[in-house]
Structures are given as C-alpha cells and as structure tokens.
C-alpha cells in the first residue's frame, strides 16, 4: 500500500504536476526573420510633414471631441495653483464647436441643430490659427531636412519657411509648449455660452 501510494504520488507529480510557468517578458513587436528590408527614401518627406501637421491641427482643434460639460467639472486642479497656470489654461482652451460648425437648421439635421442664440460672430472671435497647435513643437522633419540640406540643395527654401514659422510663433506664443502628441485634456468650454469667460478669452488672445 505504501508503494502504491508512493507510486501514485510519483505518477501524480510527474504527470499532473504544475511547474512554474517560465516568465518571459512580453514583447509587443518581437523580431521576425525573413521579412526583408523596407524602402527608405525621402521623396515622400513633404507628404509625411503635411500629414503630421494635419494631425496636430485636429488634435488641438475642437473637432477632437473630449466630452461635454462633464469635462469642465472634472478638470484636475494642480496641487499648487500658479498665476501662470491660469493664463496657460485659458490660452490653451479650445474654441467651442459652434465657432466652426454652423449649427443652424440649414446645415445640420433638425435634431442636431442649435437655436440661433449666437449667430453674430465677429470674424475676429474665431481662431482659425491655433497658437499652440504645435507649430513650434519639435518638428521631427526640420532636423532631417537640415541633414539633407547638405546633400540636396533644394531643401533651402523649405528651411526658410520653417524658420519664418518659428519666428512668428515665438513672437505670438507666451510660453514654450512641448506637447508633441500630447492628449492632455484642456479645459473645454462647452456650448452653453458663458459670456464672462468668452470675454476673458478675448483679452488673453494674442491679436492676429
């Protein structure tokens, strides 16, 4: 009986025992052989830049919808409020949707339309050029362009444009923003008009 028990125990251990699973680090992109090499050419550089600029614009525009009035209530105040924070938040705030989208019944379906409360919108109010849309965020391709400038002379003109862009934005912006790909939630002024805040917005905006 003892043998049987021991045998079974051994069998049990050998057959159904659990060994600790070997811990392997999880690789999201493991190396694969036999894939070949991809093409590297800079003739599409301009296309990549354009796409990157479009993306940045969308992410900083009110089209990147981050939720309605719930957001404004849930905005986290930093531990120590500074005066510069107040300025940055207001300046960073995205303009409301109705600045850009015509919400009257002629242009959207009836159930999505808003009454014409704020029809008259002075052209100065609408901010077409977002100041912190990353125009002076680190542009990956400026550097690459400069690298290629030595090899291809044609990049000269583009560099000039980039430098002009940089100068203009340094004049306009009040602080350095370093938000490449930053989806940090900014304060969202919702549709319900808040005249006090709107006026505030105007004062802090740089004059275009």
């Amino acid at each position, binding site marked *: 009986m003892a043998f049987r028990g021991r045998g079974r125990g051994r069998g049990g251990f050998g057959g159904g025992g659990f060994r600790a699973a070997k811990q392997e680090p999880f690789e999201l992109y493991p190396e694969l052989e036999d894939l070949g090499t991809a093409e590297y050419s800079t003739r599409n550089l301009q*296309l990549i830049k354009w796409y990157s600029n479009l993306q940045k614009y969308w992410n900083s525009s009110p089209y990147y919808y981050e939720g309605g009035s719930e957001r404004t209530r849930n905005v986290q105040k930093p531990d120590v409020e500074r005066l510069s924070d107040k300025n940055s938040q207001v300046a960073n705030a995205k303009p409301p949707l109705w600045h850009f989208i015509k919400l009257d019944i002629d242009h959207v379906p009836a159930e999505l339309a808003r009454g014409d409360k704020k029809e008259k919108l002075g052209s100065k109010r609408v901010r077409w050029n977002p100041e912190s849309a990353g125009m002076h965020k680190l542009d*990956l391709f400026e550097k690459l362009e400069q690298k290629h400038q030595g090899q291809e002379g044609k990049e000269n003109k583009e560099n000039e444009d980039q430098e002009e862009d940089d100068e203009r934005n340094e004049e306009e912006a009040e602080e350095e923003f370093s938000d490449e790909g930053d989806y940090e939630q900014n304060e969202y002024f919702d549709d319900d008009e808040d005249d006090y805040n709107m006026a505030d917005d105007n004062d802090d905006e740089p004059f275009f």
Partner: protein
Amino acid sequence: MVSQYGIKLATYLISFSYGDFCSKVCECLLSRGSLTLAQIIRFTELSRENVINCLRVLIHQNCVQAFSIQQEVAFGEAPKIVTQYTALFDNMIHKMRFPKFMQIVSKELGEDCLGIFEGLLQHGRLSLNQIIDRNKQTPDNSDVHVVRETFSRLLNARFVERCPAPEPFLAPHEEETPAKKRGTKSAKIAEAPKTIEQRALAAAAPMESIRFLMEIDTLTGTSEEKGMESQNIAMLDEKWKQDFSDAELSASGKKKEILWRVNFEEFMRRLRHKACMEYVIARLSDQSGIVLSAILELTRSSETRLKTDKSASLSINDIYDEVIKKDGGLGMDFERIRASLVQLGCQIPTTGIDETYSIDLKNIVELAQNEEVESVVLKRYGREAYRIFRLLSKSGRLLETDKISDTTFVEKKDTLKILYKLWKDGYLHMEKVSVNGPKQTLFLLWEMNKEPLWLRVLDEMYHAALNLRLRITYELDQEKEILQLPKEKLIGELEKRYKRLGKVRIILETSLMNLDDALMLFRDF
C-alpha cells in the same frame, strides 16, 4: 457592409483624429448600419449630449450623412418621420490620403490654392466667408478678391464641391415599406434596387449643374443683384456675403450660406488615372504611357462616375495634338501613336474614315489587381504556387488536380499540397466530384473566384494598414520624451535615438503610402 478590419482601421483613424467619443459612434454606425439618434445613444452608452456633439463633428467632417425616412407604424397612427445616420466609410479612409490630395493641388494649382485647400481638409466644410476670414489670419493675408479668385480656380478644377443636403427626405418605396430597423435593411435582392444608404447619398448630393457653381444669378432680379455692377468696391464686400439662389432659401426664408468641401471623387479619379499610367509605363512602354496620359487628360472632364469602364472616344487627331504637347511626346508621329494604342488594347479601325479610340480602363485596373495578388502568392507560397495560381486565374473555370499538375509541370503530390494550402487560406475554391464507374474515384476540382478573394485581400490590406499605423504611434510614443526636448539638448545618445526615430517614421509612413496605393486599387478604382 464593410469588412472587419476595414471597420477597425476606420475607427482607429477617427479615434486618432477626433477622439474616442467620435470613434465609438463611428464603430457603432459601421458595424450596425444606419441608426437613429436614440439607437446610437443606446448602443454606444454615451450621454445624449456627447453623441449629439460627435455627430455634429462627424457630419461636418463628411464622415456621416443624415437622412429622414418615414417610419413604419402601427395601423391607425400617423406616419412618423425619423432621422437616421449612416457612416461614410470611404470618406473616413480618405483621411489617410489627404497628403496625396494636397500634393495634387500643390502641383497643379500652386501654393495659394493649397492654403485654402488645407483649410477645407482641416475643417471638412467651410463657407466662402469662413474661407475669407480664415485667410485673414494666415501669413499671406490677401485681398478678398484674390481669395475669391483662388477659390474659383479650385472650383474650376473640380477639387471642391458643394456640400450635400444635411437631411434629405426619402419618400417611401412603392414596392416595399421603408425599413425601420437595421435588420430589414439587408436587401434580399442584391443588385439593382439601391440600398437605403445609396438612395440617401443620391438624394443628398447636389445637382450636377450647381455642384461646382459658385453663385446662381436669380431671375427674380433683386435690386442688390443689379446693383452689383454699379456699387463701388467697398460695398461689394458686403454683397458677396450673400449667395443668391432661389433653390437654397432656408427655412426662415433668408438666403443660406453654401458650404463647400473637398471633392473626393475627383481626387480618386486622378489617382486612378495615375495608377493606370504607372502600370502602363511599367508593363508596356513609355510611349504608351504618354499616349494614355494624353487621352486621360482630354477625357477626364467627361467622366460621369468614378469607376468608368472605358474612357470617352477621341479622334486620332485630338490624340495627336495632345501627345505632342507632352514631354517626350514631341517626336511621336501617327504611326507610333497607333502602335501604342494597339498595345493599350485598342483596335485599329479598318475603314479609316472615323478613326476614334477609347481605352478600356477597367481592363488595365484588373490587370494591375491580378498582378498584385499574384505577387502576394509568389511571396507567400513560392514560385510553383505562383504558376498554379496564375493558371487558375487565367482559366476562370474549375480544373482538376491532375490537369493542373500537367499544365504547370509540378509534381502531383506537390500540386496537391500547394492546392490544399491555398484553399485553406481562402485563395481557392474546391469542389469534390465523385464518379461512380468501375472504380469509385474522387476528383478534386479547383477554381479561383475573384470576388470573394478580392474582398479577402482587401481585408488583409486593411489589417496591414492598421498595424502600420499602430506601429507608428507606438514608436512615436516610445520616444516622446525626446520629442519634447528642444533641439539644442539633443546630443550624443539622444541625438542617435532622435535620428533613428526619424528614419523609422519615414520607413513606416512610406510603406503605408505604398500600401494605400494598393488599397485604392482594390477598393476605389
């Protein structure tokens, strides 16, 4: 209905550009078909306000179209009119291609048109006034007249069109009552009767006559209109803020502003022509490429729909006049042009009196598609599989295993193995036939069905494109600290990482653009 990975790719693109709320709404509409507002709220579990704002953004960005239909009601009740929303899948995928559109505009019309065009891409829809206002805030602040003129150049080239109607009403069909829930919408007859979404898009689209028209002069000559010529320049500014149109009176009786958007159809047409030309140049000859590009340029404006089978007919003289204007076309004479036309698949008419030619574009597109799929088979399964696949694709009917093996000079058991592999992965269709003779034998017949295979290939490409986009995001995310540093601090190790990131991004984005060409080849061309 869109394939599985198509939905995932579209949802990802929307989420990346417009946030998670919008992408939830998109995913709901793409997977479930057209829905009402209440249904969307229920399925996405978002708040009403959020769904409404998402729909506003999506409609404005041309990703969703609304329409109203009469809902089936119980006997005795008054018919109810509901608004439904349908997702525009192709427009969502077009967002990946916006840089290619910008390239076309920049090459053909120049930088000032590109500025306006970029605004339209950013915002989806703009009125002329908004375009003018926006232009004032850009560095090249031009005069109103100049902006209008630039805009009309875009309009003449058909790169821009009027926006569709926001909520067309679809009258109920005579034969069948309009579907009220998504289930019944799956039409049992798959062909001629349009789906409700197609009807909605057709009803919403502006009439061809006004689609590219900036202003319509009304015959109800108001004094303002007549006064346009006599007013001085300062006042014209005000007058131009009203677009006169008797077809466009708004609900309140005032004239409503026309919104403009990018005309995706025109860009797809141009890219289709470009793809055909590249194929012809690569496979046939440069000269044929020149002839084809001449023909396409002349016939482009007469194409009524995107996927035209044949180009319009042109006489040999017209072709000749256009060809000699092109680079490299100067030395071509009639005989060379005729030779190229034969290469392109035309027949030289024997009578010679009325010598007109038209190119079969559908054929060129099909050849390019075949080549693409065959190259995938070659890469994945090897040369012998490639031969077998080509045989099946050319024969277009069921072939038996032995016959395949004999024709392609492949060993019988290898043939069988390859055929099984291809069948398992969905490239081929198999049928078993058993013959009751002296010996009961089982024959295996194989066939390549284009339609389902093309859909599979397309889905795989969507999957690959999604993977590429995810990888790009991942790589940028990994190095985001480096991207936040100012340029001066990038030295040594950091600089190396930065340069690597630049290279990686270029490689990935270039691959994505090439893959996108193939996507368009299978979906849009």
